[in-house]
């Protein structure tokens, strides 16, 4: 391998057979190029989906209600099921053990928010203190809603970073008064959200205040929990699923809803969905690898094929070499080293082309489900070495054939 003379021999053969070398390399380079692109997009999809889930806690269970679609216990369909404070409290008591964070919610899709002369329409959410963790909010300044805000029905608000940018134009919003539907609220905190500006266009106020200000009494729009996570992902999913099902049947019983009525009480288990999506990503990755490996096999077969032709083409030359004293080992080494060298160089060219293209295209390929498509460098290096190994394998059969050439027959071969 480190024999300089051997390298000189190889460079010389390559120099004299440029087209052949180029064609051999091309199949390998395109194989690894395709693999790199596929893996890049796979990681892009994976990143994108993970980011989408990271907007909120992944172990979240959301509950909201709708209109009954089935007759049950003498009640007609078409009845609206209303969540109330007492539902929330009884669920809290029953699932005390499993619950990590909890919040009751009374939200409005849009509300006029004004600061001085600036105003905008934002989502207003009445919530509990735990909402900060359920929604994955990070405080930029100030604080989130706390327990005493709830008890005192305080007129305080926590606004998203985007709102601070829109209405306060760079000023610090904490300690300033804003108007929501014309009612004064004191801004006590500003948050940022991993979901970006869409998720930062929100104002959080204490749920009790929301119920009071919007004349809601003890009515709630929805309830959200996060489940205690266990070490094992599958176990966590199982726990979360069990709790979600149990929550659903409890609420249906409380509100006299048919157990199979899908529209009246809805429980969305993020963890279970996450598991499905992650499973899907794994499947996509498996498919991409399958395609990638297939392409590489095609490349390797190509190399093997071309090396066979090379051996055939060089039968006479190999015969001459053997007649003047070349050992079978040196013939095997010569063919293998050439195969590996071509594969390696072509592999790296394909790799860098693929990585380069991904780098170029990545900024334009950002969508909700694709984020920073790039290939893990270790993965690609591993792939290249796999390819080199495969190249050696590909070179081996032709090399064996070359070594078995009988000089007497080769020399007769005109």
């Amino acid at each position, binding site marked *: 391998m480190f024999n300089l003379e051997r390298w000189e021999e190889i460079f010389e053969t390559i120099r*004299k057979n440029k087209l052949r070398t180029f064609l051999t390399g091309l199949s390998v380079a395109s194989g690894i190029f395709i693999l790199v692109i596929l893996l890049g997009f796979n990681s892009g999809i994976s990143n994108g989906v993970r980011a989408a889930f990271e907007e909120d806690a992944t172990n979240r269970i959301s509950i909201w209600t709708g209109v009954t679609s089935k007759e049950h216990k003498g009640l007609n369909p078409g009845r609206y099921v209303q969540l109330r404070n007492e539902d929330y409290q009884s669920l809290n008591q029953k699932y005390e053990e499993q619950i990590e964070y909890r919040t009751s919610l009374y939200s409005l899709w849009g509300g006029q928010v004004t600061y001085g002369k600036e105003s905008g329409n934002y989502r207003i959410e009445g919530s509990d203190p735990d909402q900060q963790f359920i929604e994955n909010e990070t405080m930029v300044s100030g604080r989130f809603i706390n327990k005493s805000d709830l008890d005192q029905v305080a007129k305080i608000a926590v606004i998203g970073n985007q709102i601070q940018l829109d209405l306060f134009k760079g000023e610090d919003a904490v300690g300033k008064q804003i108007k929501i539907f014309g009612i004064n609220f004191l801004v006590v905190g500003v948050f940022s959200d991993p979901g970006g500006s869409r998720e930062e266009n929100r104002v959080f106020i204490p749920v009790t205040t929301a119920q009071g200000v919007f004349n809601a009494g003890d009515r709630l729009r929805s309830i959200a929990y996060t489940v205690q996570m266990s070490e094992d992902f599958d176990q966590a999913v199982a726990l979360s699923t069990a709790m979600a099902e149990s929550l659903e049947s409890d609420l249906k019983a409380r509100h006299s809803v048919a157990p199979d009525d899908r529209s009246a009480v809805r429980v969305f288990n993020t963890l279970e969905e996450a598991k499905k999506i992650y499973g899907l990503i794994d499947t996509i990755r498996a498919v991409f690898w399958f395609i990638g490996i297939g392409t590489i096999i095609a490349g390797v077969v190509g190399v093997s094929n071309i090396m066979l032709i090379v051996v055939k083409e060089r039968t006479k030359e190999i015969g*001459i070499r053997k007649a003047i004293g070349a*050992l079978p*080992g040196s013939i095997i080494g010569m063919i293998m080293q050439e195969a590996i060298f071509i594969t390696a160089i072509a592999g790296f060219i394909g790799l860098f082309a693929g990585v380069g293209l991904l780098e170029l295209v990545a900024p334009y390929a950002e969508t909700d489900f694709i984020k920073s498509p790039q290939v893990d460098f270790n993965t690609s290096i591993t792939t290249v070495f796999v390819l080199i190994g495969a190249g050696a394998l590909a070179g081996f059969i032709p090399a064996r054939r070359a070594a078995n050439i009988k000089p007497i027959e080769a*020399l007769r071969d005109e």
Partner: protein
Amino acid sequence: MIAIKDLHKSYHMGNNSLHVLKGINFEANEGEMIAIMGSSGSGKSTFLNILGMLDEADLGSYHLDNVPIKNLNEKVAARYRNQFLGFIFQSFNLITYKSALDNVSMPLYYQGVKRSVRTEKAMHYLEKVGLADWATHLPSELSGGQKQRVAIARALASDPKVLLADEPTGALDTKTSYEVMELIQGINDEGKTILVVTHEEDIAHMCKRIVHLKDGKILDDKTVEQVRAKTPAHV
């Protein structure tokens, strides 16, 4: 130098068996120049191939420089070939993409000789065959006679005990043939043992001894008056 006793060789093709060599007894001493003659099918090429360790006999013994040549595996055969023998072929068999110099230094490469020494030696042998000025040329840029002279330089490069020439002039015109034979005679004059397979009478008579093969047996074996291959001025 070469001692062969009761050599047999058969080729099998399907159910047919072709008995090519039927008991050859042959000896050659150092410094001899022997022509092996015979019509096609007489077994002369097979004989040369066995001498050259390119092929192995079925029966009989073969000693080269007192080394028994038998049960050779590829590796040992390659080493012996490199050490003992130099080949000259009818179709030159130069490596087409290597320069004359590189072709000549190839046996030395397989002996593991260092590059600088190799080049120096190869150059020396090219000078000997009168092609020093053509060292960097590819075989395709050389005439037939020049190619054969490069091949002779290559055969000499490893300083072998015996030179085996298989129809060395078969692809050359008379004038060039004589030039090549003159060169081979010169090498013989320096003491090298040379075996020449040929079917041309005039070439055979440029050797010191002629062995006639017919139907796999030695028909006769006689010493002859060597005709010097001085290129006639008028040709």
